[in-house]
């Protein structure tokens, strides 16, 4: 007979060996008018995993992560995030769930009427209302140190370069300690050196913040550098799901067109 301690140990061991899905999407469909963008998408994001979603422009990658955070409403299917179905949540519940998710927008989406400090303080002052000004200041400085831009704290977004804007936007997503990170085209519009820096930063964030991430991209270098697993979307459907090495070895012309 198993003692309670044994059961607990087995469960802990099981969790370590078989990570639990933090996001589970089943049969997701989304159309805009007559155009069906997502057709029966099913996927899982496991705890501590970096999942890269690859696909051509217009294949529904961004729509997919916008459905996950409730910015877009899917037509049918289920999106379970921490065992809660996003499609059935009310505004308050959705807001609570969003506190656990960080989202890096393709454009950065920095609030252009606010300084970098105000951009970072904005979510913090509204999510963690019990924090004092000193604690908020400390948190803002810490997260800026992580992205290497402490000196830019009093700058306006218009004074920042593209790469700096991405880093500040990343810092803003991280400031409330999210458990899941969703990256929408993190390296688009950046030079190869800055793209590589952002890819390294994504890996560092995974380690230091223990996040699980979905990275939407069509940048193969970024995908190979950050991915634990890759899902390729084609015409709104999951075309292939596998490890980066599987994609590298594949002779499938659709996959090769990306990896060449």
């Amino acid at each position, binding site marked *: 007979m198993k003692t309670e301690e044994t059961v607990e140990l087995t469960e802990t061991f099981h969790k370590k060996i078989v990570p639990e899905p933090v996001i589970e999407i089943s049969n997701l469909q989304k159309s805009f008018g007559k155009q069906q963008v997502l057709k029966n998408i099913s996927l899982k994001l496991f705890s501590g995993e970096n999942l890269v979603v690859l696909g051509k422009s217009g294949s529904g990658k961004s729509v997919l992560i916008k459905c996950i955070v409730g*910015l877009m409403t899917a037509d049918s299917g289920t999106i379970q995030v921490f065992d809660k179905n996003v499609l059935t949540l009310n505004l308050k519940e959705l807001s609570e769930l969003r506190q656990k998710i960080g989202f890096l927008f393709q454009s950065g*989406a920095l*609030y252009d009427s606010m300084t970098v400090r105000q951009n970072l303080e904005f979510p913090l002052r*509204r*999510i963690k209302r019990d924090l004092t000004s000193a604690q908020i200041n400390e948190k803002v400085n810490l997260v800026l140190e992580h992205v290497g831009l402490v000196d830019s704290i009093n700058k306006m977004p218009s004074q920042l370069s593209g790469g700096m804007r991405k880093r500040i936007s990343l810092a*803003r997503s991280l400031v409330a300690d999210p458990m899941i990170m969703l990256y929408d085209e993190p390296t688009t519009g950046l030079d190869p050196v800055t793209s590589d820096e952002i890819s390294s930063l994504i890996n560092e964030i995974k380690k230091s913040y223990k996040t699980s991430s979905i990275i939407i991209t069509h940048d193969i270098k970024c995908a190979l550098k950050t991915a634990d697993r890759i899902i390729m979307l084609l015409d709104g459907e999951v075309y292939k799901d596998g490890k980066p090495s599987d994609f590298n070895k594949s002779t499938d012309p659709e996959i090769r067109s990306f990896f060449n």
Partner: protein
Amino acid sequence: MKKYIPIKKVKGFATAQSVRLSEKTLAKTQKAGNFLTDIADVSLFILRVIKETFSRNFEFKEFLHQCYQIGYKSLPLISVTGAIMGLVLAIQSRPALVDFGAVSMLPAMVAVSLIREMGPVITALICAGKIGSGMGAELGSMRVTEQIDAMEVSSANPMRFLVVTRVLAATLMIPLLILYADGLGIIGSWAGANIKGDVSLSLFFSQAFSSIDFADFIPAVIKSFFFGAVIGLVGCYKGYNAGRGTESVGIAANSAVVLASLLVLVVDVIAVQITDMLVL
């Protein structure tokens, strides 16, 4: 039960004219449906603004910032408009009053027309242009650049932060701007009266205010709060619900001005009718 056959199936044996007619009917039905959907959207938007206004965690700092932006930053434009409004009114009215030997009625006439009608409506129309378009363009560009989405995703209620503060600030500041424009309008009309006449400011003011009672003043103040609310709501609604392209920013700003100006006039007609019924 009667069975309706979809038009596509009918096409095979229907005349071209009947198909065209059916398609026109369908298009019109869809337009009517879109119109009803728009009304529902606007109603839901207004309900949500009201709900968020009375919710906890009101964004007071942003509200003060918007009061400054809407109120203080509009002062130069409103000053010029108010003064010119009074000046022109006095210059235009004087010859007609001279013909009837009633030039002494000039201060009273100008004051009543400014406070009752011209001050509120013209100032509100100017505000619809300046403030309504500003809100439409600002929120529209925030929508296009995904800043509103970023607020939503970070659990910071953009409706409370962006919309409620602007609507309340407009509702509070526009009546104050109207009163300010009325005051400057009377000073402007004194200047206008002095171009061809000679009247002291104190005499002009005492004659002007002796002709005004609460029945002139209160309805004008009440309707100016509605003007403010309409301008704020329309500007925010158009900007908040702007489309995705950069073109949408221009469309949002433009339609905010057009709709807000139109609604200011509609509210004015309703307010005048109500005042007329109550006073008589």
